[in-house]
């Protein structure tokens, strides 16, 4: 079968559901190893490297993060947090079947909760997807918080 725009959009929905259901190990397998998960600190930040970001994580760091969430002595996750993504239908900004390269832009409301606390983040996520052995994979993901310059408490899961 050939890939359609709907397949791309479904991929984004499926990823959100995976995170909301806490299937983090499965989520790791969505990535190609070289990909970066980036959450900038500054609005419209261009450089992930020489100024601070909230997150800029490679394969090693993503694995560490997920392993930690699953760990026994992860005190800030006793009890565990839960999260919830409400997403708007993604825009498919780039759709190139020849090179297997796709870019989506998705508005989301992300909610995270633990004990009596709950907070909401308004997000624009940009996914760069690649077709690897017939499967869609995340090549890069950029999560832009509407209020990235605000002060936050712990953001523990994966917006």
């Amino acid at each position, binding site marked *: 079968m050939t890939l359609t725009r709907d397949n791309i959009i479904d991929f984004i929905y499926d990823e959100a559901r995976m995170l909301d259901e806490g299937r983090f190990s499965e989520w790791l397998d969505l990535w190609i190893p070289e990909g970066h998960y980036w*959450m900038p*600190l*500054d609005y419209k930040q261009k450089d992930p*490297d*020489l*100024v*601070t*970001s*909230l*997150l*800029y994580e*490679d394969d*090693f*760091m993503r*694995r*560490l*993060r997920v*392993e*930690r969430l699953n*760990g026994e*002595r*992860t*005190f*800030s*996750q006793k009890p565990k947090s839960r999260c919830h993504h409400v997403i708007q239908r993604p825009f498919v900004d780039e759709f190139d079947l020849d090179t297997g390269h796709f870019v989506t832009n998705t508005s989301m409301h992300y909610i995270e909760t633990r004990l009596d606390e709950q907070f909401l983040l308004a997000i624009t996520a940009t996914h760069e997807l690649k077709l690897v052995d017939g499967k869609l994979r995340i090549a890069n993901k950029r999560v832009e918080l509407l209020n990235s*310059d*605000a*002060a*936050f*408490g*712990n*953001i*523990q899961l994966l917006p």
Partner: protein
Amino acid sequence: MTLTLKLTAKDSVIDRIDLFTFEAIDGASLPNYTAGAHLDFELGAAGTRSYSLIDFERRAGNARQLQVAVQREDKGDGGSKAMHALEVGDTIETTEPKNDFELHSSEAPTILIAGGIGVTPIISFAAELHARGARYQFHYATRSRENCAFAGALTARFADALTLWFDNESQMDLQSIIADAPSGAHFFCCGPKGMIEAVRELAEAQGIAKDHIHFELFASPRGHEGDKPFEVEIADGRVFTIPADKTIVEVLEAKGIDATFDCQRGDCGICQTKVLGGIPDHRDVVLSKSERDSGKVMQICVSRAKSNRLKLDIGAPASKAKTRAAERRSTMGNNTTDADAIRALVQQHQVHRDTYIDKEIYELEMKHLFSNTWVFVGHDSQTLTQGDYITTQIGNQPVIMVRHTDDQIYVLYNRCPHKGTKIAIDRSGNTGKFFRCPYHAWSFKTDGCLLAIPLKKGYAETDFEDSEANNGLESVGAVKNYRGFVFARLAKEGMSFEDYFGDAMSSFDNMVDRAPAGRLEVAGPPLRYMHQCNWKMLVDNQTDTCHPMVAHESSAGTAVRLFEEANWPADKPKPMAMEIIAPFMSPYEFFEEMGIRTWPNGHGHTGVHHSIHSDYSQDPEYWNALVEAYGEEKAAKTLGENRHNTVYWPNIMIKGPVQQLRNFIPLGPDKTLVESYIYRLVGAPDYLLQRTAMYNRLINAPTSMVGHDDLEMYERAQEGLHAQSTEWINIQRLHTEEEDYDEIAVENGTTERQMRNQMNAWVKFMTMSMEPETEAAE
């Protein structure tokens, strides 16, 4: 506003009296003043001393120099000695000239009367009157010819008006001077208390109106030899003992009794109090002879008692902050003052929980601790060009840090003097040459001076010049730019920057010396991480070396395990993240051996011998750049110093080896904003900044796996402290008998000495402004 003056000449006038000439550091012109004005000099341990400006030439309107004459009092309180210790080229801080002793402006004749060193303001008056062509007499008494300072210069200038009197030849005849004075004359007298009293009494006896008699005491009237303690009973029946070296107002203040006073020299009259019993020993120069003899009123700022007890008509206790702790402790330990209550909260090995959870204690911290200490404001690269500003806060005080047109950095209260509107609210920006308030368009120069008000004529007839609003945006007490890092002290008076930090600045030096160009630049905005806990929990954590292997096992321990499992090829560079995160899992011995150093005033650092930053890889390009800039020896020394966390009390921490600064900004007893900044080493290769940026996001971000566990601990502690079990927080690890925190110490890296050092400084700077310091004998 403070002036920084350079001593450009120091000339001996006569034995024990020197003439000091000061200029602005950069040779700029100095503020205008009028005859009779004085400067308050900041003399470190000797406190503040006022000296009248001498102005022979009437330069006051356009001064390039300021001159004072100081007589060395060998038995004095150290102020005059501190002045005499100054050497040409030294700089010193003073207030702007203030004038409490203004010359009258009427046509009436003037009688100037000076005694001893009290001649200094009188000289300025004589010069002014001489220039006006006014009618005046100038009487100047000294003990002998040898003791007559400026005799030659005065005779040369004011010969017609001048009469010199020498005690050992012919004593000044005050009786005739006053009796023979032309009618309507104004009397200006400056000299010892006895002389001023005599002038006042004689003048009153002549029926001369009070508002024609002006005087200034040049010596402190308090504290005579042989003063004894006595008791004071106040209206509500409480009785206080006034020790020999304290005044009534000092004791009442310390006890929280609301006493009104100003000059504390017995000449302003404000502290006048009714005497209901006992016999006062008058030391003031305000009361008339009949008032004095009646024994019914007294000036409680200087006067004492002849009887064992005085009963005074003075108030009910003020509604001064009385803390819960103070109340509890007053019933337990019978301590009645705030300062005592504060002291009772801190023992060397344990700290009362109220210091972390009590709202009133927190408010006292904002009022006292954050006012008396030097607090970090920002980095000068955040305000690189003139008009650049940032907004931030010192304790709970909103401030603006701005670069003025003279290229200096000013720190101003962010409050319009008109109606209070914050002048700037963006976190940073450029305001050009002036700030303009968005409410009614009052404008201010970037040094805070009021520049313009629309429709200003509306204030023309209102004595606006005298109102506080005319002063513009107020500056904080003192500002210091240390190698790019800007600190400020809110209090107008207090410890100097150098005394406050001392050797502790060596960690800043190490951080800046790591830049081949010798300076740092801020790299991007800070991470902003909100903590629902007391600010001191974060400060404590910076030198808490027994928590990483426990609290951070989930991140650092997992990282080490993952790395081992990954069978990393030997020839592939280790992930930079591993270099950063793995050392958190180092065993206790590593932290024990790394050492902790503490400095006076609450500063200290971990990592004396090595640290978690020691094994970071360096590359030859960087090494060569450093060697080129500093030579091999210094470069090696700089990179060999790998201090871990340095705490600058009260509320920042820096990491020299990774060029980071964390600012723990208090927002409430249980709320703290942590801002984590990173800096570029100017002249160094990018990979260093890359590691620094990575460190910041891995460790200090709200999304940090390491930060999550720390915050979890702080917040649990903040809640746990409310439990009705013990009320004390234990900081006893490796405590040795009676530690002296004024000593620099290097100890085992797991000691909690630095936490004890911090709380010792907490008490010191909390209580500093709560009651007068016990002063050395006068």
